[in-house]
């Protein structure tokens, strides 16, 4: 895909992002040239963002079936059964390019969009999480600006609409300098029978537009922003970024839920990327019907909008529903009560065509299948690294593999901070203060994590967020991904994201029910990116199969590139799990003097692509440590049992920074020290995410728990007490000093 600026001589279809081949295919399918409105609609429906033309074949590899799955991929959001007659709907979605161009509104409308996906299936949004990636904050003023404004934007939308932000993650790497990542995940709760699909049905039924006026904002967002690389002059694309209005959406949300409770809707669909075009086409396609839509009926924010502008506008806070004509009066009454605009703009037909009228004049008349199904799907042309490149070890051979790090303009890379080997205390403090590990408090304090009164575990209390349900059970949720590790070893790195996320859930006693993923990658037309994508999907699929976690929905974000090169390949995994008794959630901090501390799980870590290696200035390279899927599954099950039975007083999975950082985090969260003896072979800072746990409990309960099923490797490594973390023969640092280093890492930028 060309990133050069289109000129007036460039054919219209190319300006809109279609290739000549795709345009010819459209002419062939229609038997004529498309009209202006038709071309605008097709260019959006055939964009990467809507058609998934480079990823759809690949996504079939992901496991999607499971005993608790109620809604799978293809709906606005996936949903799982959580018992008690309730369903939890959830999904993660990216808003990367809008956030790179205008971080506040880009991130805010990212949250707004994912919230609509959730209430589009009839669920009340109950929690938001976010997964963010920026360039190095110390080296780059731009990255600090993006971080500050994106966080403010997420807070602005979530706080104002009354949905708590309960968790998330953020990493900083040079490869995200120009192209930051803003992924937002939302969970919603619904009575099972209120879940609704988006398939239009019943010829003669009315199509009603709900919510905000339609304006010129966000025109071409899906094709111009989401499906092309970032480049020079992106500031000129700011008009393509939508503006969020959480107040209007709050009313729209309450209005839609009341309409559903009263049984007034046949189908419901949000308006997101590609606006009316996408919503109408998807609803018609899923219901195998057609829709006649009159743009003259659409309430507009400004005068003189062209029909094509109305069809492609991405104005926020709008929903589309299908109702029976006899219910119109009742629908309008509910909408009036919530001060939400509602306008009948069309009708369901049996023709399986989308017709756009402007008063009496037909502006577009397209078969639904051409809009939704006929976009060509492309095979990826993967280019694996050569044996020499993949052969591990930094050196000249890794140069091409390191694209994305090495091409980042100098001055924006993190300077190596701690080159000296052998001073473990110094290394630990440097790691704790580093942007990828330090306290996230300056961020999450800008989010309301309290509203709705469900949040039993918030960030820094446990490895996963825990939310209470009305029947005394709970759900847990975590979101994870590590582009640095996926870059080093795409298959193992992506699998690790699944292990890590499931491990976080195990630490609060939760059993995974389902997952959602967001695949953030560079330009898939490039061989190396294609290879990363294929390998990562394979890794996710294998890990999900091993842990029996179905993927119920997600999102793909490609073309995350700037002139400096692609981002680190960044698959992000969100998992939702069940906690049978929410009054027994885990915690990560040590809690009782005298408790024993144990290392649990098949933890055979290495320094490959670790934070310690980053600290030393190494570029990330594989291979990552092997994963024994059966032993990982058993270890996580054992942890889950221990938390549920309260044999474990605290529980924390060993992530970035290895066992030393994990122990320090347990000390800081509990405000107490620990004395530890470790085998001399174990590197304090080596990593193997999702495979190792630091737990504490009384000697007796740990012994009983260890003897129980399933079996997992478990070694007593020390005890809780004192005011310092003491790792025998390696380091002694007071908890206060740990806390000082850890607390100021990000706080210095706010």
């Amino acid at each position: 895909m060309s990133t050069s600026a289109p000129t007036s001589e460039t054919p219209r279809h190319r300006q809109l992002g279609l290739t000549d081949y795709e345009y010819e295919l459209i002419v062939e399918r229609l038997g004529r040239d498309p009209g202006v409105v038709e071309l605008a609609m097709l260019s959006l429906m055939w964009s990467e963002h809507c058609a998934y033309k480079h990823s759809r074949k690949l996504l079939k590899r992901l496991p999607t079936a499971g005993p608790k799955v109620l809604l799978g991929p293809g709906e606005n959001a996936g949903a799982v059964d959580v018992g008690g007659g309730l369903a939890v709907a959830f999904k993660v979605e990216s808003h990367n390019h809008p956030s790179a161009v205008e971080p506040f509104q880009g991130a805010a409308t990212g949250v707004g969009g994912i919230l609509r996906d959730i209430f589009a299936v009839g669920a009340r949004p109950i929690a938001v999480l976010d997964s963010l990636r920026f360039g190095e904050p110390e080296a780059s003023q731009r990255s600090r600006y993006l971080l500050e404004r994106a966080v403010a934007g997420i807070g602005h939308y979530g706080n104002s609409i009354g949905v708590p932000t309960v968790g998330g993650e953020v990493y900083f790497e040079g490869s995200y300098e120009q192209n930051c990542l803003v992924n937002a995940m939302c969970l919603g709760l619904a009575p099972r029978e209120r879940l609704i699909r988006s398939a239009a049905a019943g010829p003669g039924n009315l199509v009603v537009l709900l919510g905000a006026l339609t304006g010129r904002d966000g025109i071409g967002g899906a094709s111009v922003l989401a499906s092309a690389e970032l480049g020079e002059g992106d500031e000129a694309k700011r008009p393509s970024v939508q503006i969020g209005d959480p107040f209007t959406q709050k009313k729209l949300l309450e209005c839609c839920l009341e309409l559903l409770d009263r049984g007034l809707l046949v189908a419901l669909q949000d308006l997101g990327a590609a606006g009316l075009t996408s919503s109408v086409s998807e609803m018609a396609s899923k219901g195998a019907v057609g829709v006649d839509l009159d743009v003259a009926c659409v309430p507009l924010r400004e005068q003189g909008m062209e029909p094509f502008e109305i069809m492609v506008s991405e104005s926020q806070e709008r929903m589309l529903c299908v109702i029976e004509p006899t219910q119109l009066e009742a629908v309008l009454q509910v909408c009036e009560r919530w001060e939400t605009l509602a306008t009948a703009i069309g009708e369901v037909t049996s023709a399986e065509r989308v017709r756009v009228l402007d008063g009496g004049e037909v502006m577009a008349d397209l078969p639904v299948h051409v809009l939704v199904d006929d976009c060509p799907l492309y095979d990826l042309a993967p280019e694996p690294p050569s044996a020499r490149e993949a052969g591990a070890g930094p050196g000249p051979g890794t140069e091409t593999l390191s694209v994305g790090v090495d091409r980042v303009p100098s001055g924006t890379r993190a300077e190596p901070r701690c080159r000296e080997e052998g001073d473990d205390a110094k290394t630990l403090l440097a790691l704790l203060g580093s942007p990828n590990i330090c306290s996230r408090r300056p961020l999450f304090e800008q989010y309301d994590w309290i509203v709705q009164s469900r949040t039993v575990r918030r960030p820094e209390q446990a490895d996963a967020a825990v939310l209470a349900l009305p029947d005394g059970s709970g759900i847990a949720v975590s979101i994870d991904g590590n582009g640095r590790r996926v870059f080093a070893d795409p298959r193992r790195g992506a699998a690790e994201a699944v292990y890590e996320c499931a491990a976080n859930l195990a630490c609060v006693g939760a059993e995974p029910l389902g997952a959602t993923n967001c695949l953030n990658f560079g330009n898939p037309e490039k061989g190396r990116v294609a290879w990363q994508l294929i390998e990562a999907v394979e890794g996710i699929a294998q890990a999900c199969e091993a842990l029996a976690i179905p993927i119920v929905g997600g999102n793909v974000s490609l073309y995350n590139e700037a002139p400096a090169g692609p981002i680190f390949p960044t698959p992000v995994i969100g998992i939702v799990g069940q906690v049978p008794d929410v009054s027994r959630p885990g915690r990560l901090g040590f809690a009782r003097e005298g408790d024993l501390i144990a290392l649990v799980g098949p933890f055979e870590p290495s320094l490959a692509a670790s934070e310690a290696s980053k600290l030393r200035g190494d570029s990330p390279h594989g291979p990552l440590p092997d994963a024994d899927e059966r032993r990982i599954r058993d270890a996580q099950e054992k942890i889950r049992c221990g938390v549920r039975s309260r044999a474990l007083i605290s529980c924390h999975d060993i992530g970035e920074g290895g066992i030393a950082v994990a122990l320090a985090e347990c000390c800081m969260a509990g405000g107490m020290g620990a004395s530890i003896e470790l085998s001399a072979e174990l590197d304090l800072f080596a990593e193997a995410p999702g495979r190792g746990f630091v737990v504490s409990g009384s000697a007796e309960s740990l012994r009983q728990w260890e003897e129980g099923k399933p079996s997992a490797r478990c070694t007593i490594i020390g005890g809780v007490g004192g005011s310092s973390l003491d790792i025998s023969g390696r380091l002694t640092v007071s908890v206060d000093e740990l806390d000082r280093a850890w607390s100021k890492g990000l706080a210095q930028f706010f």
Partner: protein
Amino acid sequence: MKFGVVRFPGSCDEVDALGAAALAGEAVILWHAERDLHGVDAVVVPGGFSYGDYLRAGAIARFAPVMEEVAEFARGGGLVLGICNGFQVLCEAGLLPGALLPNLSLRFICRQVLLDVVEHDTPFTCAWEPGRTLSIPVKHTTGRFYAPAPELARLKAGGQVILRYASGTNPNGSLEDIAGVCNEERNVFGLMPHPEHAVDPLTGSTDGLLIFESLRAHVDERAYV
């Protein structure tokens, strides 16, 4: 004891306030567009972003039909509790002294804070033991209490400063660490912290419950007289 919790478009914490009030008595929603207060003993104006708060926090909500009745109710001695956005609304409506300005950090801040109860002799705080420190969360962008010096002096002299942030924990730059004030007649009380989010040990503390229990105790006692 019957609580009424106002629901404006854009209210966020009204369901939580309803749940907290229901632990101390009967609780109903009062719809912003209706003037009927349903015979409640106390009105709670809850947190959130009423009407989006795009203009100035609380500036639009004071004109809601229900607020005319709430003002009338307050002038007649009725008990009115404003939490966060509700505090802002009551200040805008002139039912409480002072004003709430943007936090010094200019950022939204969500944090568990410690509060010193300054005055026990009000219908809202009578169940609190003197000298007790409370743990209750704050979450707001516009929570910095301000009053001009003469008014502030009057407030202090009249015992209208009810709650202060514990020394060194002032999250927003409020004047003299003030977290909550009442009117001269002591029947209208506004505070930035969220007592309705401190009523369950599972999600935090239970210190906030005391406000709702104080109100019930006060109303029950009044009923006996």
